[in-house]
């Protein structure tokens, strides 16, 4: 059995799965239940001066029949008195001494930071997470993402905390910034032990078409909120990677954003995270999802021969390059497996209208054909094809040549002028614009409409 336990910047946990600071960690009751279910750690709902929340706090993004592919909230930090939270933290730590309990904190003055760090330490927390990420409600008061967006302020507050902290300090970063490495570097300069990312992304998840107000609606009005859930994973992964690859950050990373199953967690880990945090998925499906996450992770580690989490942390990083370092000699071409094709022709219309007119239809069959010389290998058709492994992208270059954009630029073979002969698309075949007109009317008009519109003279089966 692989060993799932971690030691994250000095915080020990039986597995890398932590609940993120959010409603699932609002109380001792919930955290105990989560540990009972198998979670390795919990970052307590952010402590500070208790707030008052509005009613109607969440909004969701549904995709077709799938609910909550994206999720947003306009909640603030804990609305419970500090002493209640601390008493419950103590109780949880007594009952679960080997699990990680991390206090998420957000206050204003140096004195307040000192007081709350000391009080949490007394309650027995294993570490701290400084919430510099909340993108709504708190930032207007000079906290949360207002701090995360100001590296200097961020660094100063980290320094205040380090003055009294005797446990590891994690800085939680906001993604609402153009370069995530700047606040990460500030955290390091301030002396933080680790970073965690991402917090939620400023968002409006939808607008009510009858009430003309954004979701969630509070008495007819709404406000921007923080976006999270499966939809934000790609943004989180990229930011995790940016921090992990930066030569000067060199801090353990707790990956957060869109983690719902073991695969999502492994992706974060392969890009440099050494613990992962989950919020939306636990809010959607409850604590029980942890069983699938740990068993999936174990299975994967056994199959790959990884003994500990650290065998895989950052394992994909060497393969994430800058665009200019990619091999331009590599060439893939789409290939349709005729036996699998069901003839939906989505690949055809995608390439025809959205790519490079490199797929054609032939009379007498619904299976499209790739025009190899036009295919630029963009992958689009293989992405839209509804059948697994039906369109495969096959390597068609010799596999022996290697040339990057950087090398081309250095060698002076990169295009530099508007009419440059060296442009990639210079000799690529493109149909005449007017060839588009009426080309597919007989196929895009529904059956009877074709006839009623007098379009009965269509090619028999083109």
């Amino acid at each position, binding site marked *: 059995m692989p060993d799932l336990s971690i030691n994250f910047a000095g915080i020990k946990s039986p597995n890398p799965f932590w609940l993120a600071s959010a409603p699932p960690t609002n109380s001792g009751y919930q955290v105990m239940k989560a540990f009972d279910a198998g979670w390795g750690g919990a970052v307590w709902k952010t402590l500070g001066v208790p707030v008052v929340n509005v009613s109607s706090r969440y909004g969701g993004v549904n995709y077709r029949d799938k609910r909550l592919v994206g999720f947003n909230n306009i909640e603030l930090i804990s609305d419970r008195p500090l002493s209640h939270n601390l008493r419950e933290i103590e109780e949880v730590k007594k009952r679960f001494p080997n699990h990680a309990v991390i206090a998420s904190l957000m206050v204003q003055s140096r004195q307040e930071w000192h007081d709350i760090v000391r009080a949490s330490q007394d309650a027995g927390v294993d570490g701290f997470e400084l919430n510099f990420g909340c993108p709504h409600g708190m930032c207007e008061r000079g906290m949360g993402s207002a701090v995360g967006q100001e590296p200097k302020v961020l660094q100063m507050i980290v320094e205040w905390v380090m003055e009294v902290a005797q446990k590891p300090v994690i800085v939680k970063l906001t993604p609402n910034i153009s370069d995530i490495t700047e606040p990460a570097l500030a955290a390091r300069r301030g002396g933080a032990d680790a970073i965690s990312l991402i917090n939620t992304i400023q968002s409006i998840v939808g607008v009510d078409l009858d009430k003309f107000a954004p979701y969630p609606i509070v008495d007819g009005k709404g406000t921007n909120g923080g976006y999270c859930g499966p939809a934000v994973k790609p943004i989180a992964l990229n930011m995790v990677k940016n921090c992990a690859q930066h030569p000067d950050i060199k801090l353990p990373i707790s990956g957060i954003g869109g983690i719902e199953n073991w695969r999502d967690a492994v992706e974060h880990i392969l890009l440099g995270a050494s613990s992962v945090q989950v919020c939306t998925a636990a809010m959607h499906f409850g604590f029980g999802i942890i069983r699938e996450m740990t068993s999936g992770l174990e299975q994967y580690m056994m199959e790959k021969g990884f003994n500990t989490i650290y065998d895989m942390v950052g394992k994909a990083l060497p393969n994430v390059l800058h665009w200019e370092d990619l091999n331009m000699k590599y060439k893939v071409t789409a290939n349709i497996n005729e036996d699998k094709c069901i003839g939906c022709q989505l690949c055809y219309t995608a390439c025809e209208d959205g790519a490079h007119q490199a797929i054609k239809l032939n009379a007498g069959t619904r299976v499209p054909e790739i025009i190899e010389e036009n295919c630029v290998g963009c992958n689009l058709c293989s992405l839209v094809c509804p*059948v697994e492994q039906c369109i495969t992208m096959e390597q068609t270059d010799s596999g022996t040549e290697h040339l990057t954009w950087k090398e081309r630029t250095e060698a002076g073979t990169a295009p530099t002028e508007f009419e440059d002969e060296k442009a990639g698309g210079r000799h690529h075949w493109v149909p005449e614009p007017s060839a588009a007109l009426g080309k597919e009317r007989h196929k895009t008009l529904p059956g009877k409409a074709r006839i009623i519109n007098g379009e009965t003279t269509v090619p028999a089966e083109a």
Partner: protein
Amino acid sequence: MAEFSTPTTEQQFAENFAQLKPVMNRTEALYESSRCLFCFDAPCIKACPSGIDIPQFIRQINSGNDTGAARTIYEANYFGNACGKVCPTEVLCEGACVYNLQEVKPIEIGRLQSFATTKVIKSGEKLFGPGADNGKKVAVIGAGPAGISAACELRSLGYGVDIYEAKAQPSGLTVYGVAPYKITNEETLAEMAYLQAQFGYNVHFNSAISSREELEKLEDKYDAIFLGIGLGKTNELGLPGEDKINCTGAVEFIAELRQHHHEVAVGRKVIVLGGGNTAMDAASESSRLGAENVILAYRRAKEEMGAYEFEYDLAKGVGVKGLFNVAPVEITGNGYVTGVKFIRTETKDGKVSEIAGSEFVEPCDMVIKATGQAKQTEFLGLIPGLKLDGKGRIIANAHTGQTSNPKYFASGDAWNGGAEVVNAAAEAKLTARGIHAYLSK
């Protein structure tokens, strides 16, 4: 043991004849519409005789535009709701859905279709209206799928339309012939009321046109006449004993069933003669009415039956037994039916021959003849210059519906010899355009 107990109340009838394609709720419609791939040049559209833009209406349902979905459906087919429920979708749109090739359940197109149309029928939301009056008038004979569809389209083009219908209710065989587990009378008539409210044609019920004088009056009064008369009674078999009590035609039996539900009596042991879809329906219906034994007797082998496979499966599913390679020679009995005398047959080189000396009597107390509907040749003979083909079908141009008497146009069963509701609806829409082209010359 009977599969079903004899229904004695409307509720029991509804249970025995539970809808095969019940109307979806919004959640089911959302889930199902989410699966549609939105194929390019979608094969389902091509397989629909009325060419409904299926991926379009499914996408409209998925994005919450149910009204738009209903509009898309009705633009192509005025019997949109009926077709969603009664079409043999297994061999039409759903049979063509690309998911079949992936061995995944095809999209339930019929039920999605009825989901959208039921909503506008219930709300009464107006989607269409008559066109500006062009001063011309068309008479429509028959208020079946063909007649009603022609009327809707003609009204939208600005014609005055009077429909003459022999029976008391509109929709033809949709309310008098189709199996009750496919569509209820209420659903059928609600769609008819919905269409009439929008297009405003006149229907004269209980007004069969049956003489030369009546036809002459129509010819004088109207600029064109549309024939949507469908087919006629069940064919006579010409067998001894066919006049015995409890020996009935399938079409007549089913018409009674649709109108009187559980009040229709069925025998304890029923023999249905025939191998087409109507035979399957009559057999299933007998079983659902509580018959203890239902035997489907067909002259040839099972594989040669004209019925769709799923229709036979449906009949088998309610306990119907098949008896193949038998030809009826006599209906036995004394006043009442007591059995059918059959002779066994064999098929050689595609020809059926009787096996001498193989006669036997299969006892029963009811015989239903599902041996095809006769053509209305006598009535059609009253129309000067109207030509029929060798099978008694009206000859008319496939694009315009115009017959050999230029004032007369035809669609539906009377022209195609007997197909489905969707064919009648689709043909009549085109024919209405044909009438318009003719009268606009």
